[in-house]
């Protein structure tokens, strides 16, 4: 409990520092000026999203191999957090694009692929909502997550082959790209900060799912012993030891 509080506090501090750095320490960009600062969080949320979806993919495979419910819990957590990060990215993108390029949206490779990614994992969440049996829910959504994850590189490749309009990535791009050293540092800070937030939320969601599963197990145990969930059995000593 104490550890969690400390870690949360640290991450909060980190985010505060990152935010401050992005807004005040990073130098002003030549052409885009203030609005460019959104770049730090935009890129960071993509990074967080990919990590979350990778966790979901790994957890799905692990669930199908081991059959342990905890992997399913991790899988759904990864997807939910990933979808959130994706939504943030898809919103910050247009917010940045509009003042800079005059358009809210464009159907280029990266954006289209990301939109499809978003749709796919929303479909994952819908699938989970529509299947009732928990075991089937877990295995079917794991299968779907694997298919979706395999699809993503194909989506990106197809879109890339098809059109490219996105500006060259500033860090790892071709000639003429490259960041001012201060900007790089701020970016790394933001990447790390958002990543930590993502991990924190992921772990919390995972814990929540595990607790939900445990609550369901307990309810099942109570029912199977024919006991009533609202009675306080602790008060009746006769019913305490293995009464069935």
């Amino acid at each position: 409990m104490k550890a969690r509080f400390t870690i949360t506090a640290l991450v909060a501090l980190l985010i505060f520092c990152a935010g401050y750095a992005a807004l005040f320490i990073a130098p002003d960009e030549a052409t885009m000026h203030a609005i460019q600062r959104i770049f730090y969080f935009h890129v960071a949320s993509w990074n967080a999203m990919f990590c979350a979806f990778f966790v979901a993919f790994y957890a799905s495979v692990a669930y199908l191999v081991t059959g342990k419910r905890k992997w399913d819990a991790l899988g759904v957590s990864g997807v939910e957090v990933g979808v959130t990060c994706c939504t943030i990215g898809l919103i910050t993108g247009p917010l940045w694009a509009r003042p800079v390029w005059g358009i809210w949206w464009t159907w280029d490779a990266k954006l289209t692929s990301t939109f499809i990614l978003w749709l796919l994992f929303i479909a994952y969440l819908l699938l989970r909502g529509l299947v009732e049996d928990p075991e089937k829910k877990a295995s079917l959504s794991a299968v779907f997550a694997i298919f979706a994850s395999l699809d993503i590189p194909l989506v990106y490749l197809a879109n890339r082959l098809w059109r490219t309009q996105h500006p060259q990535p500033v860090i790892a791009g071709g000639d003429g790209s490259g960041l001012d050293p201060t900007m790089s540092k701020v970016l790394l800070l933001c990447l790390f900060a958002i990543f930590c937030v993502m991990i924190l939320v992921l772990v919390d969601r995972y814990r929540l799912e595990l607790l939900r599963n445990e609550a369901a197990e307990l309810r099942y145990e109570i029912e199977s012993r024919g006991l009533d969930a609202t009675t306080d059995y602790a008060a009746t000593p006769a019913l305490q030891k293995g009464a069935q």
Partner: protein
Amino acid sequence: MTTAKAAAIILAKELRLEFRTRELLTATVIFALVVVVLFSFAFDPTAAESRRYGPGLLWIAFLFAGSLMLNPSFAREQNNETLDALRMAPISSFAILLGKILANFIFMSLAELVLVPIFAVLYNLSLAGIVWRLILVLVLGTLGLTVTGTVFSAISAHARMRELLLPLLVLPLLTPLLIAAVESTASLFAEQPALDRTWLAFLAGFDIVFLTASWLLCDHLLEE
């Protein structure tokens, strides 16, 4: 019994069932035609526009029709719980899946055989000289469509609202296939028809990836 032989038996059964009533085939063709006609209300294409937008229209029609047609694949087996009978037989689950994939592939191809000439007529596109290459593109594209559609039919058979769920799951997944198929078809309908090798390779790659994934995951699709 080998998977291939078992799949062949299942395939024969599917074909026999469908050809007795032909309801699914008819419905698919009509639906695709409706989509094609509806698109014509959206714009009145000149020859150049037909060449540009036609292939996209065609494949969208196939994708929509396919995602509706593929749903009964496993949903029908819930009638009298016949899927249980298949699962109890000493055959692998992949045999069941493969048999259905092949059957759906044949049905979809038959529908396309009817639709493509009609489409060519409606949009004034010439099929002369490109027939075999077009068939190649259609085969590769349809294979990807039926593999994913059949797998997701198995998945959505367990869910509520499965008629709506199947397209929802399948269509985003198939966007790379759509792009590749449309580009390949478009390059065939162009002024100088040419077979785009990159996109064909992509289609083949897509098919292989998803067929392999289906093979690896089929037990989880059918087990209880």
